[in-house]
């Protein structure tokens, strides 16, 4: 693993996290808005929305480090007809533009709620296209360990899992920020925070279950197709790292998820709940980074090299 490969890990993880965060934020905003009104929903989610942009920008900047000749990077969108890599970059830039347009309009309350909603939906759709193109980049007969249905499925699983837990952490950070500014008026926000985090905990546990089906399935598919060497690496050479990845995601999304849910059930445990939510995000982020490292490290090439 060198700088070029770490660039790809950083780019794919951060871009997927920002797409997942954007979608999760939209869903939370919708339900909170229905329950407590738009103003409360904005209060809960606006700052979290602004955090997504830098994450995506950082990811895209990292992707440049993958290139041997980054000065030419702008040319990467010129073969949309046949190249999934072109499409990936195209949707990446489009998602950044649409997301930024929505974030600015939402922050400054430009146009009506309905107009902003439409733009957010379009941006989310572009985000899904981005994650899909990102996975299709790896679907090549010359890379049998990647050329499996589990590649797109696990990219989407990562997208949602990181999105859910990143937003959990962002809501918590936002809550304490609001508290520090104006300690008195945050009781409504406190209820909404606990509600949101309960759903975030439930979602992360469901997604963990999904991950634990997809991961063994991907290795089984590798073993059954032409990628027996890749499958062997997961249990041999990289067995310890693979176990670490499973344990980290299990602890973060599962165990800490359950505790977040418990602490979020009644008022007065906000501090503990916050620590747990940060911890869950950190564990899963590291777990997913290790997972993506393994994705690249276990790839084998079919044909001559």
């Amino acid at each position, binding site marked *: 693993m060198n700088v*070029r490969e770490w660039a790809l890990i950083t780019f794919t993880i951060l871009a997927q996290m920002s797409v997942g965060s954007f979608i999760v934020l939209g869903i939370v905003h919708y339900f909170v808005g229905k329950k407590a009104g738009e103003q409360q929903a904005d209060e809960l989610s606006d700052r979290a929305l602004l955090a997504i942009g830098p994450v995506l920008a950082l990811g895209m900047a990292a992707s440049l480090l*993958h*290139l*041997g*000749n*980054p000065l*030419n*990077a702008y*040319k*990467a*969108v*010129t*073969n949309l007809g*046949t*190249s*999934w*890599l*072109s499409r990936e*970059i195209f949707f990446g830039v489009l998602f950044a533009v649409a997301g930024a347009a929505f974030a600015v309009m939402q922050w400054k309350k430009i146009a009506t709620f309905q107009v902003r909603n439409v733009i957010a939906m379009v941006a989310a759709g572009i985000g899904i296209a981005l994650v899909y193109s990102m996975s299709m*980049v790896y679907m*090549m*007969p*010359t*890379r049998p360990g990647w050329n499996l249905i589990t590649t797109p499925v696990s990219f989407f699983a990562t997208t949602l899992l990181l999105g859910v837990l990143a937003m959990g952490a962002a809501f918590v950070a936002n809550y304490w920020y609001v508290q520090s500014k104006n300690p008195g008026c945050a009781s409504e926000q406190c209820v909404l925070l606990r509600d949101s985090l309960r759903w975030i905990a439930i979602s992360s546990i469901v997604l963990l279950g999904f991950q634990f089906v997809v991961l063994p399935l991907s290795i089984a598919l590798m073993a059954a197709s032409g990628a027996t*060497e890749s499958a062997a690496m997961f249990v041999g050479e990289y067995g310890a790292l693979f176990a670490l990845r499973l344990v980290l995601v299990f602890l973060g999304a599962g165990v800490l998820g359950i505790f977040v849910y418990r602490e979020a059930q009644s008022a007065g445990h906000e501090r503990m709940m916050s620590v747990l939510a940060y911890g869950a995000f950190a564990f899963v982020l590291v777990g997913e980074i290790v997972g993506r490292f393994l994705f690249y490290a276990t790839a084998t*090439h*079919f*044909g*001559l*090299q």
Partner: protein
Amino acid sequence: MAKQLGFYFDATACIGCRACQVACKDKNDLVVGQTWRQVVEVSGGSWTAQENGTWATTAFAYYVSLGCQHCEKPSCVEVCPTGAMTKRADGIVVVNAEQCIGCRYCEWACPYGSPQFNEAKGVMTKCNFCEDYVAQGKKPACVDACVMRALDIGELADLRVKYGSVAQIDPLPAANLTRPSIVLTPHAKSSTHGDVKKLALDKGGMK
């Protein structure tokens, strides 16, 4: 039929001297690590004890010399995000360094190891069929350097009339993947399992 230039390789004639590889390196001024033409030694077989106390062998070795296959369906051209990798009207697949971003995606996509990355320049390079020589009516450096006359070039259609249509012997991947513009005369022991891993490959340690 569209024009398509291609290589011919005779595995029954090649002695594995790698003069083609060296001629290519010299002509194209390739840095260490880049071998646009590669000669792969394929070996296999085993020894079995006979009832009379002697041993019988099925051991064999042969060579395959490969440049770029200038495929009819080149996966490198398909995946290249900038269009730096193109297929010319005469069928030669070339990479334009001016357009290349050095993402190395073509390297992943090619089953023949043809596109090769130049670390110093940060761009991809590959066998260009010695397009300058061909334009002057000459043959590529590898072809002219071959002491066994195991290599040749020509219109793919003509080569197929002359030598048949074998385009896949071990260690080459299935020809339907990219439809390589190559015609091979197979070695008596060469097979086409498509499973290279069963064979011992050796590139002679040449970089």
